[in-house]
Every structure is written in structure tokens, then in C-alpha cells.
């Protein structure tokens, strides 16, 4: 809670001719946190990174770093370093020279540099690789060198542009954990860009979900997963069943022809809404006990669960994740709890959403309001 502001975007916009890449972005980064910019390609997430690093200049608004506007400050003058997607290691230098690149520019003595390089290489578990050439290294090793090279410059802010996307699944998992450990150990602010929602949820203290050059939602991984603010976020983060519905009254929602009890409130009576049900919150039961009757259409084994596609009588398809297999063609019941139903209003902005949540949670439920309203993230541990 005592974290200090390190970087701020004030109404930052970027356009190339007619194409608006970023539309009036506001964001604040505190020191010592692990941030993730999450979004599909072309959503503007890498552009934000380039504006922070100085590879691009905004066409409107202000980028504020440590209290100073740095819109036109060149990249080399910023205490920000980047880990690039394709590693971008200098092929004409070996591992040592790559890591020593930044410190050498600062005219440090060679003994200090050597210590620094050793320290950084041990941090990324590549001790002893000093004299290797870059193209002798595997992709994972190259990415470790790239991380060491960026960190050797003592940045206040480390930017990571989809650094793990070129690696295979297992290696990605390992490096995710390592990155998180390194970030904790050094206490540097990380800004991580990815299109992989799983990666974002697993690593971050705080996530910005981007689409179409706009921040759609920001919050802790739990916030974003449990309370998606709109269709895009619900669809992009995790798997979702999204159906249209009507909010008949507070705590009463109507969809697929039936009324259901819910835990949401604060909307106009009979307001049209979207209803989100996560596949893992749905369970199969007997047709009599189910809230909905469905027919199993399709089933596939996913290792730790079965993914089932079921169709109700109105021909809506429901995605269900269960641990026990079902029989294709069988008639079964679908059941879920009121708190599993998440309601989204059309065109509700993130601020409105937070305000509404705060309002009715203050009234009705005794939960801690700071959970979703306060922007300071809590450390979210996954290990």
C-alpha cells in the first residue's frame, strides 16, 4: 500500500495517419509490482511498451516517469530496459559481451563489469556460459541471456515483450516461475506483454486487458477472471459461456427462458444484460435435478478434465468441464450456483462497474470493498 508511483500515462494517444493505435490511455504503475499487458495481437499492448521504452513517441498526452514528462526523451536516456520477443541478442558478440554491453557504455571498470555479468548470469542460471556464442544457445538460453542483459543495466522498470512466446510449453512454464522469482528478488517493476491469458493469470500482480487500443479492464488476476467487465474480457480470459439475458430485478436474472437467482444487483429493472457462466462452474446431474436440461453432443479428453459440449432445448451450446466422462447423446441436467452467474451490462465502463459493485456491496454484503475498488494490487501467489 506504500508503493510509490513510478510511471504514469496521462491521456496518451498514438496514431499513424488515420490508424489509431492507442486511444487516450491512462495508466499508473507502482514500483516493485509485476504488471501484465494482456490482449490479442494488434490491441496496442506492445505499443504501450514502446512508448515506455522510447522506441515510439506519443502523438498526444504525457508519459510521466519518476515525476518527469519523458515524451521526447531518447531511449538510451531512460532507466528502462526491454527484453525483446525474438531476444535481439547481438550476434557479433558472445554471451559475456552481450550482458556487458550496457555496463561498458557506462564506463564502469572491467572488474566491476565482470562481477556484474557473473551475478546476472547466475541470476538467470547460466553461470559458466560467458564465452558461448549466441547461435550456440537454445531459444530458452538466449532468452535468459536477454533477461540478464537487460537487468545488468539496473533498470527501474523492465519491459518484457512477449518474451516466452517462441518457447515450448514446458520451458515457458519454467521461465514463468523464474521470472516471477527474479522480479521478487530484485524488487524491480516488471511490465510483461503477452497474448496468453494463462500466462498473465499465473504471473501477474495486476493485469491490464487491452483491445482496440483501449484498456478494457484492469485488476488482479482474480478480479479479472471472476468479474469480467464486458463480453471481450469474459471471452478472452478463460473459457466462457455467454448468453443474453434480462435482469428482472436485483438478484433475479432471466435467461434461456428461465428465471435464476443471482448475486448481482444495481441495474435498471428489466435491463438487457449478458450472462457469463464459466465451464468449470457447471456440473452435470440427472435431468430432474438440473436447472437446465441438455443433450451431450461432443466430448474430448483434456488430461485433467473432460470438455463437453452440450445443447439445451433452445439450441444454445454449453461448454462444460467435468472430471468424469459422460455419454454422447445422453440427456442430462446442468446445474450451477447463484454465485457462479456473472452478469455484464452492455457498454458499462470499468469505472461504472467498480462504482456499482462498491455501492451494492456496501449496502448488502459485509465483504471488504477495497477488494475490487482499490487499485493497489495485492501480491498474488501461485507457487
Amino acid at each position, binding site marked *: 500500500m506504500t508503493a510509490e508511483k513510478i510511471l504514469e500515462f496521462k491521456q496518451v494517444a498514438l496514431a499513424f495517419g488515420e490508424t489509431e493505435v492507442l486511444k487516450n490511455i491512462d495508466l499508473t504503475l507502482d514500483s516493485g509490482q509485476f504488471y501484465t499487458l494482456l490482449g490479442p495481437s494488434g490491441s496496442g499492448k506492445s505499443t504501450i511498451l514502446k512508448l515506455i*521504452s*522510447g*522506441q515510439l513517441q506519443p502523438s498526444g498526452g504525457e508519459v510521466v516517469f519518476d515525476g518527469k514528462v519523458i515524451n521526447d526523451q*531518447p*531511449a*538510451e536516456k531512460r532507466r*528502462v*530496459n*526491454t527484453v*525483446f520477443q*525474438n531476444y*535481439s*541478442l*547481438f*550476434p*557479433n558478440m558472445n554471451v559475456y559481451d552481450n550482458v556487458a*554491453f*550496457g555496463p561498458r*557504455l*557506462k564506463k564502469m571498470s572491467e572488474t566491476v563489469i565482470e562481477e556484474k555479468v557473473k551475478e546476472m548470469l547466475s541470476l538467470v542460471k547460466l553461470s559458466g556460459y560467458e564465452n558461448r*556464442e549466441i*547461435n*550456440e544457445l537454445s531459444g530458452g538460453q538466449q532468452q535468459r541471456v536477454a533477461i540478464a*542483459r*537487460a537487468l545488468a*543495466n539496473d533498470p527501474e522498470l523492465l519491459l518484457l515483450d512477449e518474451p516466452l512466446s517462441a518457447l515450448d510449453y514446458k520451458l515457458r512454464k519454467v521461465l514463468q516461475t523464474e521470472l516471477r522469482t527474479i522480479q521478487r528478488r530484485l524488487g524491480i517493476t516488471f511490465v510483461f506483454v503477452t497474448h496468453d491469458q494463462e500466462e498473465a493469470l499465473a504471473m501477474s500482480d495486476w493485469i491490464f486487458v487491452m483491445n482496440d487500443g483501449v484498456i478494457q479492464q484492469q485488476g488482479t488476476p482474480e478480479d479479472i477472471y471472476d468479474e469480467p467487465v464486458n463480453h471481450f474480457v469474459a471471452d478472452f480470459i478463460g473459457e466462457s459461456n455467454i448468453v443474453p439475458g434480462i435482469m428482472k430485478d436485483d438478484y433475479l436474472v432471466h435467461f434461456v427462458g428461465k428465471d435464476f437467482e443471482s448475486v448481482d444487483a444495481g441495474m435498471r429493472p428489466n435491463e438487457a444484460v449478458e450472462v457469463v457462466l464459466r465451464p468449470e462452474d457447471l456440473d452435470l446431474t440427472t435431468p430432474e435435478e438440473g436447472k437446465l436440461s441438455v443433450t451431450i453432443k461432443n466430448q474430448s479428453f483434456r488430461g485433467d478434465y473432460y470438455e463437453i459440449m452440450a445443447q439445451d432445448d433452445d439450441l444454445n451450446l454449453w461448454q462444460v468441464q467435468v472430471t468424469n466422462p459422460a455419454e454422447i447423446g445422453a440427456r442430462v441436467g446442468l446445474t450451477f450456483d447463484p454465485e457462479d452467474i456473472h452478469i455484464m451490462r452492455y457498454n458499462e465502463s470499468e469505472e461504472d462497474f467498480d462504482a456499482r459493485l462498491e455501492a451494492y456491496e456496501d449496502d448488502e454484503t459485509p465483504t471488504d470493498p477495497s477488494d475490487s475498488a482499490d487499485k493497489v494490487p495485492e501480491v498474488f501467489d501461485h507457487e
Partner: protein
Amino acid sequence: MNKTKKRFTEAYLGIYGLWLIAFVVAPLLLLVIQSVSVPGQGFSLSNYKEFFTSGPYLAMTVNSVWYAFLITMVTLVIAYPLALCLTKLKHRQFWLLLVILPTWINLLLKTYAFIGLLGKGGLLNSGLEHLGFGPTQLLFTNGAFLLVAAYIELPFMVLPIYNALLDIDPLLPAASRDLGASAGQTLKKVIWPLSLPGVKTGVQTVFIPSLSLFMITRLIGGNKVITLGTAIEEHFLVTQNWSFGSTIGVVLIIAMGLTMALTGEKKKKKKGGRR
């Protein structure tokens, strides 16, 4: 199917191999034979003996290499920044074509232009006169030879460097800047080393022809700069001493081969080590 493919390959090899034998191996072999068959003596190494013991020929060799080196350096100094600027231009393809365009005007025509520019009543001299200098002999000087030769070779130096620069991943300079290097430091530590293959190609494509610019020596250099190329032309087409001309040719080839082998070997070793 594989059989047909094999037959194709054999046909390619046959055609190309025949060509190589008839028009690469044969002429060079004949050159070597010619160099050791001295008129009136039959087989003899006397030409080689004469070449390596005669002061003028050795001096000429040094002179040739020195001038070729100078021409290469002058073109490189002009071409590298030019190539670098070209890669940053918006319509760089178009500008590059404009750099190549002069190569479609025959080099003799360009040489001819310089005769007009540098001559006694030429543009440069009248310009100098306006500035208060008397008419100076610009034509038939070593400087004029250097200028014209460098002018003719310039596009051939720009092209490979430009391509090498474009091949550099644009994220590498960005990474260098990101790590705190200024534009100048990035040029020195990242861009220049990575463009070296292009520079090497450029140096080769300029250095080699620079050894045989006898027409420029004659028309612009006023026969003052005598290179091995001039000597070969003289022996073949003026004094008709093909035998000695061939000897100079063979020496030149061996010298070139040695330099190539030396630079080539280094490259291979590095590559092999990296793998």
C-alpha cells in the same frame, strides 16, 4: 521418379561442367601455358624470372595494389554513410535505383565526361579561374585517376553495403539504444560489425576491377599511373608480347587467389566454430 530427377541433375551437371571446362578452365590453362612458352625458347620460366627480378615490374605491382587500395578506401568512405542514409529514407527503393542508374551509362561515357570537366578549358578550371587561381592541369594527374576510378566504382560499393544494412534486424539497434547506447555508439558497436559482410563484398567488387582500369589510366591518368592492368594491355595489344603479358596475368591471379583464400578461410573457421 527419383531416376528422372537424377537424370535431370546429371544433365545440369553436364551442361554446366562442359561450360566450365571450355570457358573457365581452358582459357586460364592457356594463359598459364602461354606464360611459360617464350617465343624462340619453347618452355621456359624466363618470363617469371624477369618479372620477379626487375625493379620496374615490382614497383608497378606495388603501385597497382596501392592505387586499388586507395580507390577502394575512397569509395568506402563515401559509400558507407550513403548506404546508411539510404536505408532510412522513405522511398529507399527508388533512391537506390537512382544510385544504380549511373552504372547503366557505360563507364567510357562517364570517363569522357570527366575529360570535359577536368580539361584545361573545362568547367572546374574555369571555376578555379573565377576564384583567382590560374588554369591548372587537373587532367592527367594521379588525383584525377583516383577521382574518376572511385566515381565509377561507387555504386558497386553502395549496393552490397545497403543490402547488408537492410538485413540487420531493426530490433538490434533498438536493443542497443534501449541498453543506453547513443546513436554513434550503436553505429560503432552494433551496425558496423553486423554490416561487415556487405563491406567485404563491396571491397572485393571494387578492389578487383580497380586493378584493370587501363582505359582510365590512358585517358585520365595520362599514362602516369602504370598498373599491372595497363601492362597486360600493353603487352597483348600494343607490343604483341603475349607470353610476357600472360606471365603478369598469372602473377595477378595467384596474388588474388591468395588474398581470397586467406579471407575466405577466416570466414569458414568462424562459422564452423559457431556451429
